[in-house]
């Protein structure tokens, strides 16, 4: 950032024609942006800095007097514990399966909405309902649907009379992923629909004339042209899924080996009030999120920033 400011300073003199009007405009722009920017920095930047500081301390609220600087030992404790790595694994399973399913389902719904001859409004309205529903409510809804004490699915072709999916590992994963997929597919579908509408119809017509069938047109024309939209949607949903908290908390609280990294952080910070160790978990989750974002932007070339730069 410093380099950028220096650049601006050296570039400024040759363009000495920076008029008062332009200067006033710039000043107004900074004034208008300042409150939002300061708020965002103050409420994310400062706490993450504080979390890093806390993560270097031995600090347990049950024994506050024993607070002391311990360097990286909390990180070593976390990174050498099997709990952390198995929780990373659980989180990745949930992320990969839910985002993968959402992509396929979301694409199907987007195609239905895009190509619909009629009923487009009805479909759009109905897919927005899961989007609007509170995640905790969605999690309870599915939990109660399969709970032996209240569910209606026991004894049907889906579940045996005594089944209790949320007491087993596979069942728990199925329910958590199902809830996530149900709740967030609409968002995916809407993003993909916006991408679909950017694919020119003429290309499809031309390919049709050339004898390409529907599948060929989808895989050879639609998908490649939608790549940017798909990658942006995947980036958003992957990061979202990796942070999963609400659904796991309500449905299993992390039991049956479904604990996600966010649940782990919560348990250490809030239940065990081990602020030092919990902060190390928090910071590690933060680093993972940065790595995932970096992977999408650099490796897969999700050019959100570029697109935005052009359009602003």
């Amino acid at each position, binding site marked *: 950032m410093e380099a950028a400011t220096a650049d601006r300073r050296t570039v400024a003199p040759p363009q000495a024609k920076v008029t008062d009007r332009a200067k006033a405009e710039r000043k107004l722009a900074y004034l208008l942006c300042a409150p939002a920017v300061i708020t965002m920095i103050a409420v994310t930047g400062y706490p993450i800095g504080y979390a890093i500081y806390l993560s270097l301390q031995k600090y347990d609220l049950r024994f506050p007097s024993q607070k002391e600087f311990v360097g990286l030992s909390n990180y070593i404790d976390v990174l050498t514990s099997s709990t952390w790595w198995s929780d990373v694994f659980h989180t990745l399973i949930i992320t990969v399966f839910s985002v993968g399913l959402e992509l396929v389902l979301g694409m199907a719904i987007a195609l239905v909405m895009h190509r619909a*001859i009629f009923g487009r409004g009805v479909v*759009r309205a109905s897919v927005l309902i899961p989007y609007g529903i509170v995640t905790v409510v969605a999690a309870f809804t599915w939990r109660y649907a399969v709970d032996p004490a*209240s569910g209606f699915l026991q004894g049907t072709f889906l579940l045996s009379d005594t089944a209790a999916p949320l007491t087993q590992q596979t069942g728990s994963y199925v329910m958590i992923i199902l809830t996530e997929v149900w709740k967030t597919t609409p968002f995916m579908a809407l993003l993909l629909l916006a991408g679909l509408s950017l694919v020119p119809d003429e290309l499809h017509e031309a390919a049709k004339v050339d004898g390409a069938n529907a599948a060929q047109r989808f895989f050879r024309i639609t998908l490649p042209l939608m790549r940017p939209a798909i990658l942006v949607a995947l980036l958003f949903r992957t990061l979202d899924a990796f942070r999963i908290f609400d659904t796991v908390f309500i449905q299993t609280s992390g039991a049956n080996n479904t604990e996600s990294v966010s649940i782990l952080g919560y348990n250490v910070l809030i239940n065990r009030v081990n*602020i030092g160790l919990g902060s190390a978990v928090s910071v590690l989750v933060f680093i993972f999120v940065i790595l995932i974002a970096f992977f999408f932007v650099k490796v897969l070339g999700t050019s959100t920033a570029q697109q935005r730069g052009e359009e602003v």
Partner: protein
Amino acid sequence: MTGDARQKVMWSIGILVVLLYALFPVAWITSLSLKTPDQLGDRKFFSGIHFDNYRQIFKTSDFTHALVNSIGIAAIATFIAIVLAAMAAYALSRLDFTGKALILSGALAVAMFPAISIVGSLFQLWRNIGIYDTWIGLIIPYLTFALPLAIYTLSAFFREIPWELEQAAQVDGATPFQAFQKVIVPLAAPGVFTAAILVFIFAWNDFIFANTLTSSNSARTVPAALAFFTGGSQFQQPVGAVAAAAVVVTIPIIIMVLIFQRRIVSGLTAGAVKG
């Protein structure tokens, strides 16, 4: 069957599947909330309409407080976020200055920020400065994390406004304030309104901050209260009460979403794709 008719049938089936997908769970939780305690275990999807659960939750202060907290906190956070975001979005879409890309990338970074990474810090900080378990303690994180969404949505809308009309009105003799109020405000209102709905839904939905930064009825919102609901007795599952409360917080959002669906869709996609 002609190709046309077959296509119509195919689409109808597709639409029906999507409708079932979206509505079935909502129908289920509603039906569950309308059961009596004796019917809860009857394993039926629908067992009649009884309002016992609703009567029960509105009798307890746990739920009524949470409802007031949810509405108040989400509304205030929405209002502040929209004011701050509108100022920034105006600058980003209309004014010429360096650092636009930096601000937009920064906002994007905030949108991807994992909440769990700062709940510990906020828990500590809020207790130190005395806003743990208060409305303001939740309003601050909500408005912050809603800002990226609001800035992107509003910038996208503001870019579409024909700002020349403002000058035209001034040429016609309107004062700058009149020009702004009579011309720009009506043009900007739909976008602002859309952003406000999206931010409200975001704040309404939060669980992790509400769960970690509150400890009592004084600021606990509905999603957090639901997680801590207890049955009439220690051994009774609060299924009916949770279902009824879930329906109460879901209905207003569904109505809002259905009325403003067109705007919400354009807001969501403008904020995410073009953003």
